[in-house]
């Protein structure tokens, strides 16, 4: 039994076979599920904390500041300290709040992002489920989070929260379209919805290169609408701190607030991971047809590193956008979607279909 950092499929297969050898298949699946759950949960916490730290550092550097620098080297453990603090913060009960929904909302948000992580291929074989409709599944799951936001806004018994939640609803209903259409454009190019096959299809050139202009347009639109879907600046109307103080999570405190906070960052990670998978080849290294030496060097870098580099690059792009632009107004947000992104998207889809039909792509 040998493990390779380049291919996790033998590793997962070994776990599976050794589990099945010692117990009934039903138990084996159950144990596997628990293992995956624990793995994802750990990953979730680590990535969440890291992204919060990264965001603080990135924005600090852009703003000529130092950012966190007291806890640990370079403030590395600042977010851990914050998390510990949040765990001990009192959970303030809200008068006349819908108690059940109020408590349910953070879990809905966090579970939605949790489920999406399961479908993301981190490296070859490192994949919880490889659905044959992976893209479709991700789109469906990632729009579930808004239910939690709406619940939070409604159940808080706070006017600011309600306005924030309604804004969030309008926003996600609109931008879900753009996310979908941008991904569909790429699905046309890939010819499949299975994520592992999409990545395999990018062995000789990532889709952003293969698809020429339509792929680039689709990428830009995806980043814009993906940012909007995660409720991040410049589309953070749902929390709009200068208008609605904190929007839908105004009344949340302590660990429940931390759930919303973490979910925002994980959602950002998910959006970036999908973009990396579909436009930049996921864990697939950069290959150029014919340059065998170059390709060998590229292959030497482990796929997980490729995947994380690409993802965090896109995360950085999103942070860059957030820390540069002012926020849009709600009607402009909808104008941008329905008058600009949607027509462009549909036209782009046609262009891509034309490209694929005529074989102009590589």
């Amino acid at each position, binding site marked *: 039994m040998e493990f390779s950092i380049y291919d996790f499929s033998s590793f997962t297969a070994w776990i599976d076979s050794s589990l099945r050898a010692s117990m009934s298949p039903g138990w084996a699946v159950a144990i596997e599920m628990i293992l995956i759950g624990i793995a994802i949960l750990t990953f979730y916490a680590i990535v969440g904390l890291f992204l919060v730290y990264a965001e603080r550092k990135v924005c600090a*550097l*852009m703003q000529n500041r*130092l950012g966190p620098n007291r806890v640990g080297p370079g403030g590395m453990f600042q977010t851990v300290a914050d998390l510990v603090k949040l765990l001990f913060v009192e959970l303030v009960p809200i008068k006349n709040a819908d108690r059940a929904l109020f408590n349910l909302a953070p879990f809905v948000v966090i579970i939605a992002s949790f489920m999406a992580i399961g479908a993301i291929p981190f490296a070859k074989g490192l994949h919880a489920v490889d659905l044959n409709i992976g893209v479709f599944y991700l789109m469906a799951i990632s729009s579930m989070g808004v239910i939690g936001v709406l619940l939070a806004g409604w159940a808080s018994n706070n006017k600011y929260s309600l306005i924030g939640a309604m804004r969030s609803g309008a926003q996600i209903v609109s931008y879900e379209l753009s996310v979908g259409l941008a991904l569909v454009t790429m699905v046309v190019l890939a010819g499949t919805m299975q994520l592992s096959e999409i990545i395999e299809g990018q062995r000789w050139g990532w889709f952003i290169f293969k698809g020429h202009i339509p792929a680039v347009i689709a990428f830009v639109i995806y980043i814009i609408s993906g940012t909007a879907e995660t409720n991040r600046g410049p589309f953070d109307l749902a929390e709009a701190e200068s208008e609605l103080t904190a929007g839908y999570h105004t009344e949340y405190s302590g660990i429940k607030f931390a759930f919303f906070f973490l979910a925002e960052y994980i959602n950002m990670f998910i959006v970036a991971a999908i973009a990396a998978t579909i436009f930049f080849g996921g864990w697939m290294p950069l290959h150029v047809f014919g340059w065998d030496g170059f390709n060998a060097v590229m292959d030497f870098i482990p796929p997980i590193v490729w995947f994380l580099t690409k993802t965090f690059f896109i995360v950085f792009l999103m942070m*860059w956008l957030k820390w*540069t632009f002012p926020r849009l107004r709600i009607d402009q947000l909808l104008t941008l979607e329905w008058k*600009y992104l949607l027509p462009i998207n549909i036209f782009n889809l046609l262009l891509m279909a034309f490209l694929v039909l005529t074989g102009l792509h590589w």
Partner: protein
Amino acid sequence: MNSFTEYFRGIFSGIRSLLAGLSVTGKYFVKPGTTVTQQYPNNRKDLKMFDMFKGEVIMPHNEKNEHKCTGCGICEINCPNGSIEVISASIVSEEGKKQRIIDRHIYHLGMCTFCGLCVKTCPSQALAFGQEFEHAVFDRTKLTKVLNQPGSKIMKGVE
């Protein structure tokens, strides 16, 4: 047709303006040494306030523990919010004349607004501004200070 070109011109000029904004933040992100943060408690040693900085009102004493305050009370009259109280006493000086001196020059830092009128109007320049700025204390009564040091005397030649 016109509105059609306008539509696209709007898109492109919009994108250009957004890129210009990104270039500014991007520049500061990659440019090292533009950080302006001062790490306050760590730089205490080399943190020097300007000479004019109005941190608190002090009464400078020379090395012989002498000050210039005659206890005339002009600072007390000029203070707009009653942060100065001069408690004077009278002694008989060496020449046998009755002389007014200060017993205590009380300064309520908590009430002071740093307008500078006491320092400006003092006829014998007995008061000045100190540069100390770390005034936080746990008890408000500690903000009431006596400016003349114990056992201090008035400087010779100051009337």
